[in-house]
């Protein structure tokens, strides 16, 4: 059972290593993105010692951690891959094999993130002398302990959302529009654009009940000291609940989608 997915993981590693230069290039571009973020926020901080209770170094640490998380946890093109396999009829082979399509795809996602995650460390290491002065990591040990389940659950949420959008291909021919719409929502409510705690308190509170909060902001906030132990504990519970909900939704979409699916060809 395990060895089956271990093989999938190894194949995933190999096929992703083929695209190592693409990942590396994306990593380099993300440094340019970081530069833009740095210029904008440095200008915003000039004349202000803190924004939202955090200084420029703490804010930049948050954005740097987002880049690392982006490559280690964020779903990249899993939605498109699932969509392509449905539209091209490639999922037919999985219907006949003793393999869970969700687990198969999730294993490939893990392999891809492992490759892209380690590759982004190369440009970040090269830029470290420039970034060093802007990185301040909190010292409380509980943060690193809590970050482990938060990151794993974040990965599951990231993957499940992408997987569900991919499954929409059972109903729609073209899902790119839906993906871009969801990406826009995830960018704001996931904290990719700005730390969510800078939003007005009622909106920030409401965002904590949505799954997007747990995609990026939550693990980054634990690691960079933006939330306390109490919020982290309750957050982990809500995050786990969202993983269960999204798993059920993806299972439901898969079952309903298969009713509509027609496998053609010999």
């Amino acid at each position, binding site marked *: 059972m395990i060895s089956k997915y271990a093989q999938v993981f190894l194949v995933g590693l190999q096929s992703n290593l083929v695209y190592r230069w693409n990942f590396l290039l994306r990593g380099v571009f993300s440094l340019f993105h970081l530069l833009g973020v740095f*210029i904008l926020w440095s200008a915003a*901080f000039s004349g*202000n010692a803190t924004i939202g209770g955090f200084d420029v170094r703490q804010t930049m640490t948050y954005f740097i951690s987002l880049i690392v998380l982006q490559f280690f946890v964020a779903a990249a093109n899993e939605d498109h891959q699932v969509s392509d396999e449905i539209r091209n009829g490639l999922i037919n082979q999985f219907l006949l094999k003793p393999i869970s399509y969700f687990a198969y795809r999730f294993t490939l996602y893990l392999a891809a993130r492992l490759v892209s995650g380690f590759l982004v460390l190369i440009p970040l290491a090269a830029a470290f002398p420039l970034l060093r002065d802007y990185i301040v990591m909190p010292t409380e040990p509980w943060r690193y302990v809590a970050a482990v389940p938060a990151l794993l659950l974040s990965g599951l949420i990231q993957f499940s959302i992408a997987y569900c959008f991919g499954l929409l291909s059972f109903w729609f021919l073209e899902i790119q529009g839906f993906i871009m719409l969801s990406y826009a929502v995830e960018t704001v409510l996931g904290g990719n654009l700005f730390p969510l705690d800078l939003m007005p308190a009622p909106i920030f509170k409401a965002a904590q009940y949505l799954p997007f909060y747990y995609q990026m902001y939550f693990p980054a906030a634990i690691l960079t000291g933006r939330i306390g132990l109490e919020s982290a504990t309750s957050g982990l519970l809500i995050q786990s609940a969202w993983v269960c909900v999204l798993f059920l939704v993806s299972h439901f979409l898969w079952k309903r989608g298969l009713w509509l699916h027609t496998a053609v060809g010999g």
Partner: protein
Amino acid sequence: MHKLNYYLKLWLASVRYSVTRTLMFRADFLLWSTVELFWMGINILLVSVIYAHTDSIAGWSKYEMLLLLGTSMLVQRLLIGFFWANIHELGDNIRTGKFDFFLAQPGNLMFMASTRKLDLDSLANSVVAIALVAYSARELGLSPSLLDLATYAFLVGCGLVIHYSFMLTMVSLSFWITNAQGLEGSYFTLFSFSRIPREAFRGVTQLVFVWTLPVVIVSNAPAQTILYGFNPQLCLWLAGAAAFWFALTVIVFHCGLKRYSSASS
């Protein structure tokens, strides 16, 4: 003049084709318009959130910043509306050999390959960008003269030429490099710099992104025209940059064209 008429007719035929195509996929048009509107809203939200905690970014007030953002969005919407789909496909066409299709067409290759499709949802959203500029100008109590408005339109046009040229130069590298997709991505990263005030760039970043690459000035120059009136130096700077980048892309595109060997068997 006769030639200009000929190309205008060709372009109008492309417009007809794009309109017909959009009318065939109306739901798609609505969905993509919403997606783009959403993304524009996100950028406005970013500015609003930052200004909820500070009064100025590099000396620019909230509405000055929104005016800059609106201008940057306008240039981007126009670029995507008129050229993006064509330029994006160009790289694929060169890789797959489908570029042969354009070789057989009766007109300038660069024109034919980059103006065939229009993205009407982006063009529709350019109205939203103009509305943002107008709203910000009103909030600032500005009443730009006709000359200022004409200069603004001219500078936005120059910005469009610069972005078109930059993008096409990047994609023309597909004639040499089989996979230039990553390079296209660099364009959007650089574009995000156009939403930042020029005064925020210091030292090396100023040298690279303000003086060497015109990514910041394309939006800052038109926005400053509305804010502070006609400035001949800015006009000359942007017009000169537009002429330089356009000449460069013509050279790169035609050099690349000589290397094109199709991909058919």
